Structure formats: structure tokens, C-alpha cells
């Protein structure tokens, strides 16, 4: 993937910043990758190369690690991320049907991002909301008891939000305390 010049600078600045606040121990590799991804949204190759340099570990190892763990993404995610839970409870009551419904409406497969970068779709092993099965996590909001009809509703809402071209203004899941 080609990076624009300012994207490149942003990545370099971000890595420098994160490296500064860590001990540069190999033990910090996973926390560092987590921080980078939290800021940039994914792990650009450039970032991985710089981290490898900073921690004095082979870049091949950083790559091996980033491709091993589920959490890490090597490509930018879509603007809206949908995670469909396929834990036991969700699977038993049609989790795969929910996943397929999203695939049909987004016109992508699980693990992919739509070409317009609006959507990405993932399956997750369990989000721990088994009593609300089947569950999908739509931009950090947990949706319970999802049906194909509800998927259409969710997609409609997301499309509308996109059309209004509004900035991301999701209610924060962990809002302030009373």
C-alpha cells in the first residue's frame, strides 16, 4: 500500500512518541503494537519496521507477532467496523446467519474491508454477552438478538450516517459516570 507523504510523517511521529514512553524492552513489543494500532487504526509496515529498529528485534519477528494475534490489523479498517460474535451461544442461535447477512449487504467477506473503506467485517470468538445472543458489535456498540431484518436496519442506519457525511459521533460506550 502506498502511503501519502503526510501519512508517513504521522506514522513516524506516532512511533517515535510511543517508543519514547516505553522501556524498549522486547517485553514491551505487544503493548507498543497495541498503542500504535489504537492511534493509527492498524499497523503500517513502516511502523513495524521502525518498532523493530527501536527495540532491536528482527523485523521478521514483529511481522510474525502481528500476523499471529487476532487483535492486530495490517490494513486500515473501514470507517465502520462490524464484529459478529461466533461464540457458542451466538452460533447456536444463528450467528453465522447474521454474519452472512452482513456479508451480503456489505458485499464483502468476513475479514475484509469494503473497497470504499466504509465497512470492515470481522468474526470474533466471544464478546461475553452470551445472554443477548446472537450478538454483533457495531462500532463498539453491542447489538443483541440480531436477525437478518435487524442487520438491514443497522446497515440502513450506517448508510444514512455516511450519506449525511457527518463526522463519527457514536455515543461513547463507556460514557461518564453518574
Amino acid at each position, binding site marked *: 500500500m502506498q502511503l501519502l507523504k503526510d501519512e508517513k510523517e504521522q506514522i513516524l511521529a506516532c512511533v517515535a512518541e510511543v517508543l519514547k514512553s516505553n522501556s524498549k524492552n522486547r517485553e514491551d513489543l505487544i503493548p507498543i503494537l497495541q498503542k500504535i494500532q489504537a492511534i493509527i487504526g492498524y499497523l503500517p509496515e513502516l511502523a513495524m519496521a521502525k518498532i523493530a529498529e527501536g527495540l532491536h528485534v528482527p523485523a521478521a519477528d514483529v511481522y510474525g507477532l502481528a500476523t499471529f494475534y487476532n487483535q*492486530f490489523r495490517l490494513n486500515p479498517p473501514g470507517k465502520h467496523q462490524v464484529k459478529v460474535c461466533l461464540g*457458542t451461544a451466538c452460533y447456536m442461535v444463528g450467528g453465522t446467519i447474521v454474519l452472512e447477512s452482513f456479508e451480503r449487504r456489505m458485499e464483502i467477506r468476513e475479514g475484509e474491508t469494503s473497497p470504499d473503506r466504509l465497512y470492515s467485517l470481522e468474526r470474533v*470468538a*466471544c464478546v461475553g454477552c452470551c445472554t443477548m445472543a446472537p450478538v454483533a458489535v457495531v462500532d463498539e456498540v453491542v447489538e443483541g438478538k440480531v436477525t437478518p431484518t435487524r442487520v438491514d436496519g443497522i446497515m440502513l442506519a450506517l448508510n444514512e450516517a455516511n450519506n449525511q457525511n457527518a463526522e463519527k459521533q457514536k455515543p461513547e460506550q463507556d460514557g461518564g459516570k453518574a
Partner: protein
Amino acid sequence: MSATDPRKIYTKLLAESKEKAGSRQDKPQILIGTATCGIAAGALQVRDDFIREIKEKGLEADVIEVGCMGHCYAEPLAVIAKPGFPPICYGHLDEGLVHRLVEDFLVGDDPSYEYALAALERNDVFPIFEDFPRGAYEKKLILENCGFIDALNIDSYLALEGYNALVEALIQEPAWVLEEIKVANLRGRGGAGFPAGLKWEVCLKSGGDEIYVICNADEGDPGAFMDRSILESDPHLVIEGMILCAYAVGAKKGYLYIRAEYPRAVKHVQVAIDQAREKGLLGSSILGTTFSFDLEIFQGAGAFVCGEATALVNSMEGKIGLPESRPPRLAQQGFRGKPTVLNNVKTFAYVPLIMKRGADWFKGIGTPESPGTAVFSLVGKIVNTGLVEVPMGTTLRQLIYDVGGGLPNGREFKAVQIGGPSGGCLPEAELDVPIDFDSLHDAGAIMGSGGLVVMDQDDCMVAVARYFLDFTQHESCGKCTFCRLGTRHMLDILTDITKGKGDRDTLDLLEELAEDVRDGSLCNLGRTAPNPVLTTLKYFHDEYRAHIEEGRCPALSCRDLILYYIDPPRCSKLCNVCVGSCPTEAIFTREDGLKEIDQEKCVKCDNCRKACPPEYSAVVKLSPPVLPSDKERKAK
């Protein structure tokens, strides 16, 4: 050991917290269950509704977020504690009900009992949870405070004499803590049931000045959420348990390894660690003594295999999370090559209780070989979904029917899956098996980390086995041959069977391979991965045979072996619900007004069957997938 008497500082902390708690009790408190599951059910909206209503009415009341009360079937939940009344728990809350409760109960004095689930303190007017049938079986030890204390406020835990066990221990020698845990025969709750005391002792004897204590909160079993609930709802209980362990083995540093998929648990634990440190309960010179211990969170990056101890340690060291062959055990050579105690969240949670109430008290609960309680997340086809805690030795039947309320809507029990991808499926005939580490193991399942999924006649056992193999295959680290390739071939064979492909040899090969993966894999994940296959082959053999011999899925679940059909005599003609429900426009109206499904377009999503009004129930599933018209033609 103590430089100053830890009781002095603690007494002050306790008094402060009680004073704060006391001042709170002058006005009504509304406790809202906002664990992850509660939020999914709309608890944050309920919280905001309460705050708004209270403000509008100009009332003085505290709205406090608490964790999970375990009654997930009735989310969103709240407890209203108004001076002069027992605290009362309400379920299924929505905006209307919140309005009504504020109006009638907070402004007025009518507790609206018709909407109440139960009271929390014994009183003359309304039953408490223990009065219900399930109360006879439930015994809440480590879940006792979950959902009733403010996890983000250490005073809430302190006011209930929290950290008192630590104070008692600090007055005594570390050896006393170890001895109590050994005598209590506390077995590890991560699944295998290894005695915690023995593990600690090995660690202590391995010696050195660098010893680590790690809490395994990498709860990855699909269908299990006990650890998440405890960390979100009562983090100090786990932290206190870890400090006690550190005191016993002489550790100075500990970690909580929490999966990154649990952001709320991470947040609550971090707040708890900070507050404990601030109060001098964590960090250097704990409670003024010479004992120092500090905690840090390590966020797992999403790999089921990291629940395995050696893989977890590798990932903490910045490496790929691959299991290692053992020995050496972690207690001898663990994190950074140093002796390490690694226990599950629940194991640590029992520790303060055992120290407070004594090993004999603990041994008085449960069975001699498996003392204490077992915590399960009940999910699937069961009325009272949620978290339950029962004494070891309770039978599965009691757990499912008496505590869980049985299956909903008169559904027929078929199997119960215990222990997630490492566990097994047990049939009706095995329901009288007592829940303890050894009995479950003998039945082919395992205690695992406590996921319990109830299945009914609509659940296909081949598909369930395939589901778990798909999971383990997906989560296999790929290091050893049996797990990397063996689970893949098992999955391929199972996928074929769900499509009706295969013969008797296929089942034999599947069983042989499952046994070899069990006997030959490097780590416990690989060794237990075949359990779902082996138990379903053992208890539901006929169901496997129906798939390959008749091309029929008895549960009408395997999508390659069923088709959807609208039964003409039952179709109302006038209603169009099914047509509208179809996401692929596969349903059309025939010239005679009846609806029909275009089998080419149908994706078998079940939407039309759910949509068809119950008085018609015209949409049916057929297996083998042959239309009645084709069947007739064939017969001719």
C-alpha cells in the same frame, strides 16, 4: 515481619470507608448493573433515564453503576435502596418503568412490587432471591458482592471489610497463608483443577529473589464470561487474592493478563489497582509493613492459545504465543525464567474468603475432593441465563432444571456442553453426574473455565462438534503437527458429514484421528480439542449416521441437508409477511395466491419461518432436502 502494625492503618481506612458508605445511606441509592452484558441490554440508557427523572423531580438520590448481578435473563437490572425499605431488585427496565419507579417509589412510597424480582435483605413483605427454588442450590461466595458494590470505588469494597484478610495475613507469617490454602485444598479454577497450594509451594521452594504472580484472565472460551464479570464487578477481591498469594510465595511483582476484548474489565481493574495503591494496599510497604508488591495489567492481543500457561508467558515476553513442552513447570521456571504462580481469576478470588473464614469453612462446602463452589455461565436454551454459583457436587440436572429453570417454551433437552472447546457434550442420561473436577472428567467433559451451554432438539450434535473444531482449528497456534494438521483434517471430515458425505470408514477415521490428536499433541489445548468430537461420537452416534447414511439432519439444522418449504394447506395466501422478510427475494406469490420459495435464491436464513405468523406456521424445514413434489415424482 511487620514494621508497624498493619491493623492501625487498616482501621483508619475501614472507618473512612464506612463513614462514606453511611453518608450515602441517608438518601436513596439506585444501583445499575452496567457490566458489558447489561450495557448490551441497554443499561446505560436506563442509567441516563434515572438521572434525568431524578433531576426533573428535584430528588436527592445517588445513581451508582455496579457490575453483574448474574440475573442476565432480566437485563437491564437495577436495585433501589431507599431508606426505610429493603433494597429491591427490578428487571427488564425501560424508560416507562424507570419513570414509574421514580414517580411511585422515590417520590411516593410504593415499591411497585409487581415489577420487582426480589428483595436483597430479609423482610416481612417481599421474598428475597434465596426464597426462590434456585436459592436452595445457589451458594454465592466469589459472586457475593458482584452487582452490589461499586467496582470503581474502593470504599465500597473496604466498607464490607475488604482487605481484612490481607491485614490478618500480614500479622501472621507467610507460611500460614500457604498452609491455609493447602489445607483448604483449593483447586485451580482454570479448568484442570490443579491444587493451588501445591503450585504455590513449588514456586516458593524454587526460591530466588524474583518470583512472579500472574492472574490468567485470558478467558477465551466462547460462551464463558465469569472471569469478565468478576473483574468488572468486584476487582478488589481478585487483587486482594493476588496480594495474599504474593505474600505467601514472596513475590514482589504481579500481572493481570486480561484479554483486550474485555475493555471494561481492563478499565475497572486499572482503576482498582490505582485506588489500592493510593490507599497503601498495593505498592511498597503495604499497610506500613516491610512487604511490598505491585500489580500491572498486561493486555492479551487475542489468541485463544494464550490461555495456556506457557503460551501466555511467551506472549508476555514479547514473543509469539506458542506453548512449550513441560517440564519445567512455570512454578519452577516461568516468566523471565523465574518461578511464577499462574492462577485463574476465580482461583485468586477464593483466596481472601478462605483466609477470612478459614480452610475448614471452605472444605465444608462442596465435595471432599473438590471443595468450594463452581461458577458457571448458563447460556443456550435455558430460562435463567446468567451467572450462577453452586457448591461442587451439585448435579447437572439440579443446575439446569432447578437453578436454570429448565428449557424455555417446553423445549426438549438434548445435550449440555460443558467446558467449551476443550469440553464435551453430555446427554440426558449423564445429567446426574455431580459437578466436580473428577466426575466431569470421567464423563468425557471437563469443568473447563465454566461455560455451560444447554441444547435442545433443534441443535445438531455434528454441527456442534464441527463448530468447536472450527474454533480450535482457527485458534490453533500451528506449532505442533497434531493440532495444526490434525484439527484441520477433523474439521474437514466433520464438514463433509454435515453435507451428508462419508461412510462408516469416515466415522472410524474421525475417531482414530481424534484419539491420536488427544494423545499426541504438545499442549493441553491440542490434547483436549478432540473432546467435543469424541463425546458426540460416543453419545450421539446415530445422529452422525443419519447424516451420512440418509443424508438427513435430525435436528433440521445442517443447511446442506435441509430445505425451506411453504406448506400449501397452511399458507394463508392473504398475508405477505414471509415475502417481506426474505433478504434475497426468494419468496414469490404464485398465480393461485400461495407463496413459494425459489430454492435457487434461498439462503436458508430462517427469517421467513420466524416471520410466518404462528397461527399458520406454514414455513417448514425438510430433511433430506427433497421437495414433496419431487418425492412423489421419484416414487412414481
